[in-house]
């Protein structure tokens, strides 16, 4: 790239290095990824991974500290070489996917990959050829927050993966050691995520979007079992469908408005140009990536992958690309077809995915359903498109990323030490792995209880739905929250149960795992304490910039400070209470005479009876099939109706 030229459009000279930092963030992980391919020994790899993520973390924090607070800063990085190399990479990706599809006889995936490549090519050499994209890269408040989520949460999960994958290989010795490829894909994925949130050029964004699809596809199929291959192709097919929506949006925007940049697209929408069809298609693409109904099944299937993959791609970052897209578009959403699409599908998904979570006993599936549900809530908020709703959407995104990562990593570690990811098998985890159970309790409480961030954000979401007078969303959020309390509450109950006489088995957890889990747990708590400050100094100006209004405060800050104080009280209470205290423990009541270990009692005919507990799943009410199918039918009909309407309006028929 010797002839690379750049010009600074806005801002001061400092922006030169901003652009270098951005390019570094996109290119360095690719470099690190390639190095991973050559790291064969465990020690070398561990050192290389640690060093690379340290660099990524540091640079992303540096970028955000220096340029996060300046509003929208655009960068012109015009070069035909870059455009053509992206195009070439895109064709290679499509060709690769085509071959994979043919080899596994999944012709639908092949066909979709070809369609998408054809669309992109026809745009580049047709309409797109005449469109000059002035600014290809940018950074603003929202993308800064995403950079932090990717740079910090993503990096921590990769660190965790070092220890986890060692155990994984140990538990599955018959499998070929493909860890070099694993880390290669993880780093490529980070690069693509940075690309999505920092590209202003829509075709660049689509390219990175597709890279995340491909990474996800390859990582879901990591174990190469039949189930993994099936799931990976399901994810691929659905996400390619979303990508085709994206490609059509680019073509229509280019054709109608002569625009290929995100910021100009938003400006056009705000100034009243008719952008509803492309906006609707972009929302559609975002919803597929965020696993909204009826496309939620790919995320459930993706749970077959090793846990760090589930944590990184399927809860804290890749699916966040989907909600990022919808939040990005939120200023032009609201009571129009694209906004209604986001609201109705998001709301339905929140309610029905929460219900489906009740009937699950597999911890990873509970987490998956909860992820789908929360992404739905975020998308619904973004669809409402008011300042307050978007505030809630961004807060939910931040807290969800951190809390869900924590939970996934805890479940992953527990699985390796108790040999199961079933919540029923986590009986007495508090006694077997006290530290891990403690972290898990923080994560679970973080998902649904005051004073944790998720709840405070949900509170704002409720207020914004009421202000928007959206009856459907009010119903979805009220009933959905009630169900949420139930399914987290019963898991929490399993976690806190103290069982006598259990052996401590957490001594063998790897250092890297503790580091990542511990950091996430501290982050969850720290973010809650810092909530009022974050809201005032980061989110308020950010929302102001997005909506071109003055700074905006969603909740009265007194409430936020009360929550923050409650959080501190919650830390303080156990410290004070348990200081130097000894409690005499007694026997529990079991209906018969206990034998002394609190786990068996003398039943009738003098036999010893073991007690064991099972959770409550209510399958006949909240069964997965019932909730999933209902949701899929509603969401699919809403999607088809609203997109058809936009199409008819666009075509001038209505």
């Amino acid at each position, binding site marked *: 790239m010797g002839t690379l030229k750049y010009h600074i459009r806005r801002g001061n000279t400092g922006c030169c290095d901003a652009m270098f930092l951005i390019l570094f963030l996109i290119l360095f992980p690719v470099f690190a990824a390639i190095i991973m391919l050559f790291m064969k020994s465990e020690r070398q790899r561990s050192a290389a991974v640690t060093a690379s993520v340290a660099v990524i973390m540091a640079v992303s924090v540096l970028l955000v500290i220096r340029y996060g607070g300046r509003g929208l800063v655009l960068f012109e990085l015009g070069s035909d070489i870059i455009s053509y190399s992206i195009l070439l990479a895109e064709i290679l990706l499509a060709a690769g996917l085509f071959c994979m599809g043919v080899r596994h006889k999944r012709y639908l995936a092949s066909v979709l990959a070809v369609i998408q490549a054809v669309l992109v090519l026809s745009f580049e050499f047709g309409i797109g050829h005449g469109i000059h994209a002035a600014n290809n890269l940018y950074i603003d408040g929202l993308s800064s927050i995403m950079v932090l989520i990717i740079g910090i949460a993503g990096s921590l999960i990769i660190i965790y993966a070092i220890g986890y994958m060692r155990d994984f290989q140990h538990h599955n010795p018959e499998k070929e050691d493909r860890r070099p490829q694993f880390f290669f894909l993880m780093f490529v994925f980070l690069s693509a995520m940075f690309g999505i949130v920092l590209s202003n050029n829509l075709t660049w964004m689509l390219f990175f979007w597709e890279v995340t699809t491909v990474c996800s596809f390859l990582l879901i199929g990591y174990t190469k079992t039949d189930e993994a291959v099936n799931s990976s192709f399901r994810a691929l097919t659905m996400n390619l469908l979303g990508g085709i929506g994206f490609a059509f949006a680019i073509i229509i925007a280019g054709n109608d408005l002569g625009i290929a940049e995100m910021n100009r697209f938003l400006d056009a929408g705000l100034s009243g140009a008719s952008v509803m069809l492309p906006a609707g298609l972009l929302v559609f693409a975002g919803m597929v990536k965020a696993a909204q109904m009826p496309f939620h099944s790919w995320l459930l299937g993706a749970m077959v992958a090793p846990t760090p993959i589930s944590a990184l791609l399927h809860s804290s970052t890749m699916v966040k690309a989907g909600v990022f897209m919808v939040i990005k578009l939120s200023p032009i959403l609201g009571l129009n077809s694209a906004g209604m699409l986001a609201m109705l599908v998001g709301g339905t998904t929140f309610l029905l995915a929460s219900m489906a979570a009740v009937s699950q006993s597999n911890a990873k599936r509970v987490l998956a359903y909860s992820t789908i549900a929360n992404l739905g809530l975020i998308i619904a908020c973004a669809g409402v498109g008011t300042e307050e709703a978007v505030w809630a959407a961004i807060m939910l995104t931040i807290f969800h990323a951190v809390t869900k990562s924590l939970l996934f990593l805890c479940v992953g570690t527990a699985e390796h030490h108790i040999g199961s990811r079933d919540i029923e098998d986590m009986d*007495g985890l*508090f006694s077997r792995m006290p530290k891990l159970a403690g972290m898990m309790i923080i994560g679970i409480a973080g998902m649904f*209880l*005051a*004073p944790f961030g998720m*709840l405070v954000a949900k*509170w704002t979401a*409720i*207020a914004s739905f*009421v202000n928007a*007078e959206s*009856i459907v969303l*009010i*119903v979805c959020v*009220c*009933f959905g*929250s*009630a*169900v949420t*309390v*139930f399914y987290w*509450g*019963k898991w*929490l*109950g*399993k976690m*806190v*149960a*103290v*069982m006598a006489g259990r052996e401590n088995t957490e001594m063998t957890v790897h250092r890297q795992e503790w580091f990542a889990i511990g950091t996430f747990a501290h982050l969850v708590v720290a973010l809650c304490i810092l909530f009022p400050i974050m809201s005032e100094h980061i989110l308020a100006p950010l929302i102001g910039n997005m909506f071109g209004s003055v700074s905006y405060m969603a909740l*009265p800050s*007194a*409430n936020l400070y*009360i*929550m923050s104080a*409650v959080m501190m*009280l*919650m830390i303080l*209470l*156990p410290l004070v*209470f*348990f200081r130097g205290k000894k*409690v*005499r*423990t*007694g*026997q*529990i*009541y*079991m*209906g018969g005479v206990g034998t002394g270990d*609190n786990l068996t009692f003398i039943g009738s005919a003098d036999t010893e009876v073991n*007690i064991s*507990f099972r*959770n*409550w799943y209510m399958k006949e*009410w909240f069964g997965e099939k019932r909730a999933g199918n209902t949701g899929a039918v509603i969401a699919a009909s809403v999607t088809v109706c609203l997109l058809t309407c936009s199409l008819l309006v666009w075509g001038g028929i209505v």
Partner: protein
Amino acid sequence: MESVQIISMVCYVISAPLLGLLLAGADRIISARMQRRKGPPILQPYYDVRKLADKERPSAGGVQEFYVLCSLIFMVITGAVFFAGGDLMLAVFMLMLSTVLLLVAAFSSNSPYSQIGAERELYLTMAYEPMVLFTAIGFYVFSGSFRIIDIATGGSMPIVHLFGIFIGFVFILTIKLRKSPFDIGMSHHAHQELVKGISTEFSGKTLAMTEIIHWYENILLLGFIILFFCDGSILGYVIGLAVCISVYVFEILIDNSFARMKWQSALKSAWPVALVFGLGNIIVLFALEA
């Protein structure tokens, strides 16, 4: 914060347990009279709690006392927020925190009876929560603010516009007050299939604290009822208080005249009630505004 708010808050924190215990005593006497018994003296709940507090405290699992103490602290904070005229949603969420902590205490014992009690209570929470949220939303749509001080001094009685929500709230009050037919998680009486449900493993001081939590909670819940009648005048409070007493007597009557229902019926009745009376009322309010 104005001095009135501070006084009201302090009054709650100090007097709620006293009022709560008198209410509990009166409850037992009225129940007894309904069953043609004489009943205990009105201060009996106080004697009970004092006796419990003096007892030695063996604990199942060793952490229950802590969780119950936290539950008590957050219950007091919830009430303080409410009676200081703070945010209604904040109060609702803090109430939930206190409830969940009590359940966590029950879960932590790993005892069959308290586990099942806690799971049932969690299920009841799922049943009543939508109506609680609809109540908060209803007040917000009516007065344009979540702040209780704004609602209470709004100038017109919320009940006129929120009659449906009032009915829905009274319905779930039966669950929240742990009255029959929905006392499936923890009953005031031990002669049921779950022994004492949640509180089976609580003893001594811990059990005494659960009683005090109950007193605080009852007064808070009656505060919600009064809020329906607050129009800024003394008369509003007087009417509110009168309605409060009648609602409570009504709940005792229901308690004494209904057998315990199957667990299924709690959700099957509470959700439709929330939809019809809660949401229906909110839709009417939106329509009136438009």
